[in-house]
């Protein structure tokens, strides 16, 4: 379950931010997870709680903002809504879709004290 190591990346980002921005506690972590990224939000929630235990983000609330997936058809140029990393262009049936948004996963903001 790679969500475990991604949750550890979240903790690392939090710890680096704590040093740079001088805070001791994290109340809320807001993650932005693209629909086409390789993260399953429920798995992330599960891993988040166990990774944050005993850290400055112990008990922090996790908010996940899911961003929609979009792509461009490399055959006809249409802008396409994508629900998975692959698919067929609704205009021309081409499988050559290039993802243009929704494949990122990032820590957006933190509520700290």
């Amino acid at each position, binding site marked *: *379950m*790679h969500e*475990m*190591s*991604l949750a550890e*990346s*979240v903790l*690392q*980002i939090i710890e680096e*931010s704590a040093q740079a*921005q001088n*805070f001791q506690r994290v*109340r*809320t972590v*807001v*993650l932005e997870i693209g*629909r086409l*990224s*390789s*993260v*399953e*939000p*429920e798995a992330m929630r599960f891993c988040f709680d166990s990774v944050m235990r005993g850290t400055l983000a112990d008990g922090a*609330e996790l*908010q*996940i*903002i*899911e*961003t*929609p997936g979009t792509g461009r058809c490399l055959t006809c140029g249409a802008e396409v809504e994508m*629900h*998975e*990393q*692959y698919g067929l262009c609704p205009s021309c049936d081409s*499988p*050559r879709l290039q993802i243009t948004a929704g494949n*990122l*996963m*990032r*820590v*957006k*903001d*933190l*509520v*700290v*004290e």
Partner: protein
Amino acid sequence: MCSTCGCGSHDVLIGGKRPVRGSGSITFRKAKAAPEHEHPQEDTTTSRVIQVERDLLARNDSFADANRRLLTGRGIFALNLVSSPGSGKTTLLVKTIAALQGKLPLAVIEGDQQTENDAARIRAAGAPAIQINTGRGCHLDAQMTGQAIAQLDLADDGLLLIENVGNLVCPAAFDLGEAHKVVILSVTEGEDKPLKYPDMFRAADLMLLNKCDLLPYLEFDAELAISYAHRINPDLKVIRISAVSGEGMGAWLNWIEAGSREAVAAK
């Protein structure tokens, strides 16, 4: 869906259905009057909001970039081999090492959760190998790969084969600094694996359809499997291969040698 930021939708399906969440009679959040859920900005005065905006893979990607710079600078052609457990990766590597002996210097990084068994097989085949045991980890990452590269006796202008942990899901997201991901699908698996695990087939540049010597004894439809893979990744190159019979080994070795020549020319 939240009208402020668009968040709140989930794609989890249980029994083909989306589980009910945050509506109906059961709620897991404290009830609040106006918004559908809390936003950071709504928190009280003792707290502050910090904008972070940092990618979760950024750290891995920076290690991967460093690996790639080191490898390309020395003309080393690096391949990240990914598959399910049992696809025949290690046997294929052993045959590849034997075939390239004296032609191309090569070294191997072996990833498994536990045991040194695979590295021992590779060393017995005549190539330097280092084993990474990921413990509970389900994939290699770029940092551990960089540490392994530093400990390996790598020849300039050579080949680095990285055998990732047997897992078709997690290694897809982690760039190691390789030139290409090579996905190995064996004909003893299902034809629809590319559809079931699309991330990996999308991330790969080459698919080796392995154990093709067994096709006469199986109901596996090779054309169907390849068409599924091309549905995910239209540009995926495919080689039908058998590490046991030697079928397709020539095409695979040619592909490696051509890539290696390009890597040497580009350094």
